[in-house]
């Protein structure tokens, strides 16, 4: 779809724009300079073209690296399908990073590029976390929040303490030789290595598709443990700076207190920003084009503000994303939602690629590598063992309270899924060499841990999951039946809870939902969208769209696009507009009309032009983008009224028409005008009733009949004949010269009166299935109706007569 391509393009530009900010990447970039880049200083005369490498150096290098990263990803994905099925993408990217790093090393004999902590934390990490939280399955997340918090808080503390202490014990026992390192340094190291990394977890688990509870547990833990990690890291960092003797009970108490402040402060800040963002999107009705940007800007602001206040930035942006998603998505225009979705994915994917690539590149550096077999191997061992022990320990405690216990297999996967990643590396790289003499050892150990977990555990994760027969995620998106059932389910559970008289989980959930609906939605959501926020309705709407798309593609396949060309108002819903009785009749008039030449002449071209102009000029003011479309629109309007050829130019224009219905007035205009003209022509020729009408009507009645009593009647010609005439989903075909679908049209036109049974039977079956859906699904095609009452009145007036005539025949 051209639309999505456009969005993608836009998103790519966005990513470029943001990455232009990345300066850290190329901080050392000055080293790369070839001699020819230097300008001659003694230049005489006006140079016509100069080579200004220095001028563009930084952004240029950044963008080149982004390009290289993208190419790397492309090659990883595209060229080696059989390899990527074994090695996860993240691991592959690290390996590619090794190769690239080797190339750079070969050229420069020094490490020129590496991942700097600032770059990572300020430019690469936020979008990944934002993406993760913005698309977080909220219900799942919050219903498992307790377990997640236990793992995130206690699990991480447990890991940090045990790994640090055990390493210290081994060091004291002499397993690592002579190192300049103390207990506090070990604990600091333990705290930075203990956190499960969200980036790595997403990257690996995304490909494995474990069941959703398991996923949310690992993933939620990795997101939320950041608060703990940051606090532990800061506290121990401060302790190391203070030095052992000066730490007393007060300091330790302050450390614990700072945990509460950092974690809850960060989350609270995120919620505040989420509220701000939701409020903002409430009032972007007239500048829809930038509302998508707000999501990113506010998300990033939440992150930076938290960082500024030394609160947990990851928690802040996580809660911002989690809390705002519902309101923002419903407040924004559907297009903006798509834009956000795509842009977010592009950004997150891009950064993820960069992170893993640079994790690989960073390794190729002789300076950081300090090898201490004991330290490194013991770290790996302890990290692995204590993770397993921690998970089983805490799960055992949790299972005492959980209604549905976490199974042993899931626990194994959880402990195995404790992947460490770039966050650990970033924290290690931020250590102060002055205070921690063994910084390089810590960095190299961290890198090895990261490589081990991401590559080795990443590779073995899939086979492990298969081998253990872990419950997989069953299917990606829910079917409508299931949604309906789930809804009924919630109510049933709540009701039974009421009946047996206990205040339970469902009671709280329901209480919250009610409160949210009553107060929060009122504040944060546009009043208009509040109405159709029902998720059942959403999925229903989606299905409708899908149907419509199928219908169109079916039409395209059949070779005629005439109906697209003319159904500007494709979602007018007649059945709803007029009462059902009238809707029954509606097709008849359409059927009749299809066989007449329409009084297009009645509409003067000048009036069309005049009418269209205002909408164009209004749009110029503000949205350039729409202009082109509107031009086409006007053009199309003219064409529709001037030419009658159905064979030409439809393909080209149909594409753009999809997105046109932006201006309600315009559509209304067009609709009314065509309607009027048709009615005029109809009036003039209404005596010439054709037999097709009868069939149509009969058919329609049967259809409704059948729907209501649920039993087939008049089976024989229900769907058999007249393929298409009856499709009320496209009743808006009112708009179009004929009301039958395009593939029928030619036939009908040729026959001029009514298609014979035989002819109709020859018609393609394929659309039938859709048509079965159609009558049922139409009723809510459009909630916003742009039909004017007077039009319907006029219609009704004219309707009576032909009806009568028909009966007499």
């Amino acid at each position, binding site marked *: 779809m051209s639309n999505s391509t456009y969005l993608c393009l836009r998103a790519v530009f966005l990513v470029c724009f943001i990455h232009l900010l990345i300066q850290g990447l190329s901080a050392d970039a000055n080293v790369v300079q070839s001699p020819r880049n230097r300008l001659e200083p003694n230049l005489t005369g006006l140079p016509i073209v100069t080579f200004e490498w220095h001028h563009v150096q930084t952004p240029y290098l950044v963008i080149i690296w982004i390009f290289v990263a993208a190419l790397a990803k492309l090659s990883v994905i595209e060229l080696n399908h059989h390899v990527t099925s074994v090695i996860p993408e993240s691991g592959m990217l690290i390996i590619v990073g090794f190769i690239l790093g080797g190339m750079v090393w070969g050229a420069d004999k020094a490490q020129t590029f590496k991942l700097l902590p600032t770059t990572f934390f300020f430019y690469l990490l936020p979008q990944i976390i934002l993406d993760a939280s913005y698309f977080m399955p909220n219900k799942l997340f919050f219903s498992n929040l307790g377990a997640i918090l236990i793992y995130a808080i206690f699990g991480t503390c447990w890991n940090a303490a045990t790994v640090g202490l055990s390493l210290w014990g081994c060091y004291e026992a002499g397993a690592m030789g002579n190192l300049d390192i103390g207990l506090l340094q070990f604990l600091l190291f333990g705290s930075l290595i203990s956190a499960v990394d969200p980036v790595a977890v997403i990257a690996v688990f995304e490909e494995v598709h474990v069941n959703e509870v398991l996923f949310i547990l690992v993933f939620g833990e990795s997101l939320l443990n950041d608060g703990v990690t940051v606090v532990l890291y800061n506290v121990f960092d401060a302790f190391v700076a203070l030095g052992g003797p000066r730490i007393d009970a007060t300091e330790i108490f302050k450390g614990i207190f700072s945990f509460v402040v950092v974690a809850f402060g960060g989350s609270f800040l995120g919620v505040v920003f989420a509220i701000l963002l939701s409020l903002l999107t409430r009032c972007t009705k007239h500048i829809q084009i930038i509302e998508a940007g707000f999501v990113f800007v506010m998300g990033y602001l939440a992150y930076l503000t938290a960082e500024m206040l030394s609160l947990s930035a990851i928690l802040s942006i996580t809660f911002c994303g989690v809390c705002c998603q519902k309101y923002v998505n419903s407040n924004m225009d559907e297009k903006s939602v798509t834009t956000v979705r795509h842009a977010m994915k592009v950004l997150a994917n891009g950064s993820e690629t960069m992170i893993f690539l640079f994790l690989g590149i960073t390794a190729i550096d002789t300076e950081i590598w300090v090898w201490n077999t004991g330290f490194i191997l013991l770290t790996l061992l302890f990290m692995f063992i204590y993770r397993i022990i921690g998970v089983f320990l805490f799960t055992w405690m949790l*299972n005492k309270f959980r209604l549905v*216990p976490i199974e042993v297999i899931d626990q194994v996967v959880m402990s195995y899924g404790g992947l460490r990643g770039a966050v650990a590396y970033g924290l290690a790289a931020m250590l102060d060499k002055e205070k921690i003499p063994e910084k390089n050892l810590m960095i190299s150990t961290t890198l090895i841990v990261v490589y081990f977990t991401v590559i080795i555990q990443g590779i073995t994760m899939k086979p492990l999951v298969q081998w253990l027969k872990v419950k997989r995620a069953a299917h990606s998106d829910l079917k409508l039946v299931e949604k*309906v059932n789930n809804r009924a389910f919630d109510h049933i559970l709540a009701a039974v809870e009421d009946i047996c*008289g206990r205040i339970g989980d469902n009671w709280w959930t329901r209480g919250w939902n009610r409160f949210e609906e009553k107060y929060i939605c009122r504040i944060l959501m546009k009043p208009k969208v509040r109405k159709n926020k029902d998720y059942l309705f959403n999925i229903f709407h989606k299905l409708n769209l899908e149907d419509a798309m199928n219908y169109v593609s079916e039409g395209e396949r059949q070779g005629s696009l005439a109906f697209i060309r003319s159904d500007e108002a494709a979602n007018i819903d007649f059945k709803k507009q007029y009462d059902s009785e009238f809707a029954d009749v509606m097709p008849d008039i359409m059927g009749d009309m299809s066989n007449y030449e329409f009084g297009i002449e009645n509409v003067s071209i000048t009036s069309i032009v005049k009418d269209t102009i205002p909408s164009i000029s209004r749009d110029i003011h503000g949205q350039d983008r729409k202009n082109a479309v509107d031009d086409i629109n006007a053009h199309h309007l003219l064409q529709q009224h001037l030419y009658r050829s159905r064979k030409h130019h439809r393909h080209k224009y149909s594409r753009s028409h999809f997105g046109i219905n932006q201006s309600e007035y315009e559509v209304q205009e067009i609709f009314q005008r065509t309607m009027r003209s048709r009615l005029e022509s109809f009036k003039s020729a209404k005596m010439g009733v054709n037999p097709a009408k009868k069939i149509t009507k009969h058919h329609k009645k049967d259809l409704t009949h*059948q729907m209501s009593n*649920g039993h087939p009647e008049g089976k024989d010609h229900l769907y058999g004949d007249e393929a298409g005439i009856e499709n009320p989903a496209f009743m808006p075909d009112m708009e179009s010269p004929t009301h039958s679908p395009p593939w029928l049209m030619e036939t009908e036109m040729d026959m001029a009166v009514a298609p014979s049974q035989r002819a109709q039977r020859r018609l393609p079956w394929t659309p039938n299935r859709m048509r079965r859906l159609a009558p049922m699904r139409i009723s809510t095609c459009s909630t916003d109706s742009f039909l004017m009452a007077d039009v319907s009145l006029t219609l009704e007036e004219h309707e009576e007569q032909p009806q009568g005539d028909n009966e007499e025949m």
Partner: protein
Amino acid sequence: MGSFQSLPDNHQYRTLSQNTGFSLEQIGILHNRFKQLSQNEETLRRDDFKTIQDLESNPIRSQIIEAFFDKRNFQKDDVGSAQEIDFEEFLTVMSYFRAPTHHITEEQREEMRRAKLRFLFNMHDTDNDGTITLEEYRHVVEELLSRSGALGMETAKGIADAAMLEVASISVGPMAPDEFFEGITFEQFLKILKGVEIETTMHIRFLNMDTTVLCK
């Protein structure tokens, strides 16, 4: 009043516990609640359910209450609708909402799943003809959506129809144009909800502690 009023671990309680799988404490609590609802009568009537305040805002209240009086749910191979239910029947219906225990074999799990789904199915299939017809389904969906104000009957109908068609396309596959989908049979119902882990979702937590005082 009844025979259950004495000590919680008397004989009847034990039998009930065996039949329904509730613990004695839970039965005791539920019995208290039962008496509270029935105003110390032996049996519960529909009106008693209607007095529960929290239930009032439930859109599918009537279906749920009906389910309690539906003889199919009493596991006695009986059909039809009861006028009043005694404690045992009350407990039997409640037992559909028990969570699976920790150690459970695959077969038991499957059985539990079937039972729970059967309960849901019965709730939809009001006329007990073995199929959920479009009419019946529509009715449920309408009730479901009736509270949300914004979505009218038309939408509810549309959604029900669409869902029904979805079922048709899933369970029957592409149909010939002259075929008609009668309704959802239980087998199809099982098939549709294959993805939903009903055995782990359809349950409420029955406390061992009495909270009846808290609820009106």
